[in-house]
């Protein structure tokens, strides 16, 4: 029987105290651990999905919104730009690669992305089966879509998967299924940009501004005949909800004097750009922003700002977690001290039996380390689960952050367990000195413990 056995016996004899102390340590560690895991995995998710995209170019509006919607597919796009903007960008000598994106439809919540095969190259996607789209309305699907080779499906308007406006005039055919990439690509459906434009621009349009979003109005499913079910498409096809977006888009159309029908056929949502040199990353946005109705955003810059804003809440949680740990350390100190007071006579007996004073200190230290260590281990487990729950409960992080990865142990867990152990060590300092200094003769002379 060594100090550890003695410590365990003591812990078990004071199970409630010990459990409460361990729980307090666990709470503090869980808070810290989950905050760090969460923010790290969000940041990881952002950088993994940025896939080397240097710039996003789209209609004027919120750059963050543009980055979120076009790079991370986590927000709705603000409006459209002209295909010729893309053509122009492609010819720009500073641009190494320009990829058009046309968003606006979904199949069961999986976003349909009209683009070029370059988009697949961006994520270094491999095919699990099939091949890249070649003809109109052929599509390549992400591994998470549940679709398989040869499947045919119709897409709906909007990006959320809850609209009932279905483009059932045209069916997409799956010609390729991708291997998992661990990026947003897994939840996307990729097709040629012309297919999306065809779907939205190829019909008669009755673009009566904004009335088209009222589901209860003439657009409800029951009102649609097969012939007229596209008459409102373009309105929310590329913009989703919110009148700001509409007015902007319409304003843009008006400026250009386009016919709406022809306009949608030649519109895209954004262009993803890779530049030739770091210097271009400085100059190209300036050049683009000088133009009247398009703007460029740098994803890394926007996301850094976004994460910094998240940082305020993060710091608060860290302070809270640290406070918990200090509190738990004090609780442990109080518990050890009261336990020692109860066990003074036990300790005296151990000394009489030959234990050195150092050994008594070691017993107290072992007790503190066992309690705080168990608390810290539970705290880390709980922290992982909390971070996992946080990620799966935030809709816009879906696909962006992989929640399963949060349940896997990480190197930093060791750090958190060490923090817990240090709090135990600190708590045990005074009690272990007290134990070492126990006045044995005095205790024995006074009789009972």
């Amino acid at each position, binding site marked *: 029987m060594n100090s550890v056995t003695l410590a365990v*016996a003591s812990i078990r004899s004071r199970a409630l105290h010990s459990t409460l102390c361990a729980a307090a340590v666990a709470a503090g560690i869980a808070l810290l651990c989950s905050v760090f895991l969460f923010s790290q995995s969000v940041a990881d998710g952002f950088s993994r999905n940025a896939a080397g995209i240097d710039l996003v170019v789209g209609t004027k509006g919120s750059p963050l919104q543009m980055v979120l919607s076009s790079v991370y597919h986590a927000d709705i796009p603000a409006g459209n730009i002209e295909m010729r903007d893309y053509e122009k960008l492609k010819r720009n000598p500073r641009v190494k690669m320009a990829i058009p994106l046309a968003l606006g439809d979904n199949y069961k919540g999986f976003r349909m992305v009209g683009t070029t095969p370059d988009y697949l190259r961006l994520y270094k996607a491999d095919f699990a089966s099939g091949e890249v789209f070649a003809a109109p309305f052929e599509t390549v699907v992400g591994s998470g879509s549940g679709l398989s080779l040869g499947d045919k499906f119709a897409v709906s308007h909007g990006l959320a998967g809850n609209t009932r406006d279905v483009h059932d005039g045209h069916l997409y055919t799956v010609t390729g299924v991708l291997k998992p990439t661990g990026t947003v690509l897994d939840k996307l459906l990729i097709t040629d940009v012309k297919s999306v434009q065809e779907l939205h621009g190829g019909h008669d349009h009755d673009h009566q501004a904004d009335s088209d979003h009222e589901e209860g109005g003439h657009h409800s499913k029951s009102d649609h005949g097969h012939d007229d079910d596209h008459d409102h498409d373009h309105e929310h096809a590329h913009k989703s909800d919110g009148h700001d977006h509409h007015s902007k888009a319409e304003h843009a159309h008006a400026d250009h004097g386009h016919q709406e029908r022809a306009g949608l056929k030649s519109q895209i949502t954004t262009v993803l750009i890779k530049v030739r040199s770091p210097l271009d990353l400085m100059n190209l946005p300036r050049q683009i922003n000088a133009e009247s109705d398009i703007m460029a955003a740098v994803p890394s810059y926007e996301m850094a700002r976004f994460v910094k804003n998240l940082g305020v809440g993060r710091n608060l949680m860290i302070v809270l977690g640290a406070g918990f740990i200090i509190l738990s350390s004090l609780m442990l100190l109080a518990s050890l001290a009261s336990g020692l007071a109860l066990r003074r006579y036990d300790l005296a*007996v151990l000394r*009489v039996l*030959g*234990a050195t004073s150092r050994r008594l200190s070691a017993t107290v230290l072992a007790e503190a380390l066992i309690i705080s260590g168990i608390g810290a281990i539970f705290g880390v487990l709980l922290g992982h689960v909390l971070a996992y729950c946080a990620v799966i409960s935030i809709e816009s992080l879906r696909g962006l952050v992989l929640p399963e990865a949060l349940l896997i142990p990480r190197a930093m867990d060791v750090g958190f367990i060490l923090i817990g152990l240090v709090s135990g060590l600190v708590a045990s300092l005074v009690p272990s000195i007290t134990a070492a200094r126990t006045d044995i*003769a005095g205790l024995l002379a006074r009789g009972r413990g």
Partner: protein
Amino acid sequence: MFLKSKDITVVRKGGSTLQFPDIEVGHDDSVLLLGASGAGKTTFLSVLAGLLRPNAGQVLVDGGDFYAISSSKRDQERGQKFGFIFQTLHLLPSLTLRQNIALAADMANVPLQNERLEHLLKTLGLVDKADRKPDALSQGEQQRAAIARAVLLRPQIIMADEPTSALDDDNANSVMDLLEAQAKESGAALLVATHDNRIKGRFKTIINLESQVREAA
């Protein structure tokens, strides 16, 4: 001569001074320290066992000055050569009886001899209770366990502090019988401090601690 003391003086916290008579305990002696409560019996035992450094005087264990060696060496010597029985017995409540007895070997850093432990459990009639906690045992069983713990390592001396004062005559006698038998079996000297006059007749040497206290000037 195993244990000797010379001119031991202890100044108590209140300032009063305790002066103790010189004693000598041989390897098979049985010595009784007789004194009323407050006469300093436990204090004297503490000094003799190396638990309390006296303000003056010397304790010799096997001829060596007990307070001249390092405290950890002293702790180890005490663990190996001294067996203790307290009035309150003091078994650790969180450990089983067997663990409590084994504690003597663990704390003294001596490997536990299981046959010795089992032998003691058998002789003292504790085999059935060995895996229970002290709370579940009778006073007599606890007393026997405390004796087993004291003699486990075959100490050179068994020190008992008021082993009988809380017991009735029958129990007092049986405890003393046990103590004497175990001391003999282990080849240990017996040093008992008590105010219990009933057991006087059992000892070869009786040292009276009465009137040794001097109040502070």
